[in-house]
């Protein structure tokens, strides 16, 4: 085999590997694992609400897309077709936690008034929902 042919073969090989790698990366890249992530903040539910309520933009800047661990009293539990939501603190000043599908079994044991610690990804703040945490897992 000539040197030129060898080089072409090697280049083709590299392109192929990179191509397959990129495709796998696009389609099989795993979702962020909130359960394994260390929380960037650990705080009381009322404190988290307070920070967003005072300044929503600053709240988004500080907590947006971050994993946060909150502790608070259960004020509301909603179970419907769209999953389980646990509202901490109180209905008007809520931390609205969407429970990850894998933790639904655990979440069903929680009752109104319990004090719980939940970890989830902060999606932001809304006047109706309060502070929204997604993919939540129950710590205790």
């Amino acid at each position, binding site marked *: 085999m000539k040197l030129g042919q060898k080089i072409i073969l090697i280049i083709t090989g590299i392109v192929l590997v990179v191509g397959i790698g990129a495709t796998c990366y696009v389609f099989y890249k795993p*979702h*962020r694992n909130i359960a394994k992530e260390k929380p960037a903040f650990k705080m009381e539910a009322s404190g988290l609400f307070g920070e967003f309520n005072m300044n929503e933009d600053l709240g988004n800047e500080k907590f947006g*897309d971050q994993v946060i661990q909150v502790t608070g009293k259960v004020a509301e539990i909603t179970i*419907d077709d769209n999953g389980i*939501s646990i509202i901490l603190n109180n209905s008007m000043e809520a931390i609205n936690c969407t429970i990850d599908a894998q933790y639904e079994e655990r979440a069903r044991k929680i009752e109104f008034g319990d004090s719980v610690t939940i970890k989830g990804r902060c*999606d*932001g703040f809304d006047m109706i929902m309060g502070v*929204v945490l997604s993919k939540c897992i129950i710590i205790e």
Partner: protein
Amino acid sequence: MKLKYFLLTIFIGLMWGSYAQKYITKSGRIDIVSNSPLFTVEGVNKKVASILNTETGELVISMLIRSFEFEEALMEEQFNGNYMQSKTYPKSIFKGRISNIKEIDFAKDGKYKAQIEGKITIHGITKEIREQGLISISEKMISAESEFYISLSDFDIKIEKAFKNSIDDKVLLKVNFKFNKQ
């Protein structure tokens, strides 16, 4: 002292009256579907909040962009990063009304056509929209559905050159809410 209780009773009465016609959901669902010959992108947000005043027809819808879920993690990243820029524009809001609210009898089970009009804000841009929806009433439960298209370019959502031909400008929105009395 008696006056105080009297006023309090009136106040609670008024509150009750004004609350009576309000229906709310904090777990509404909106699906987005982008269809093109090459591939279909589907995302879902199961955390949509909405308040409907059945007396005046006023309707408010609010959702956080980060709450959209996609099957592929990379899609979710792209959606939040390049397209919706959720860091800068974390939420979408609709404020408007059901203009034919008087034609809907909330006391009677059935399906009613609803004309929805108002302002929608996506990606920091506000547009006037007018769409059709369907209100279903069954045993005092109110559900609302609507399907309509929005154009990405209307909201200044840019598609990279490489995907210009594989992502359509028109995106289908499927709205599905089940309201509870507030």
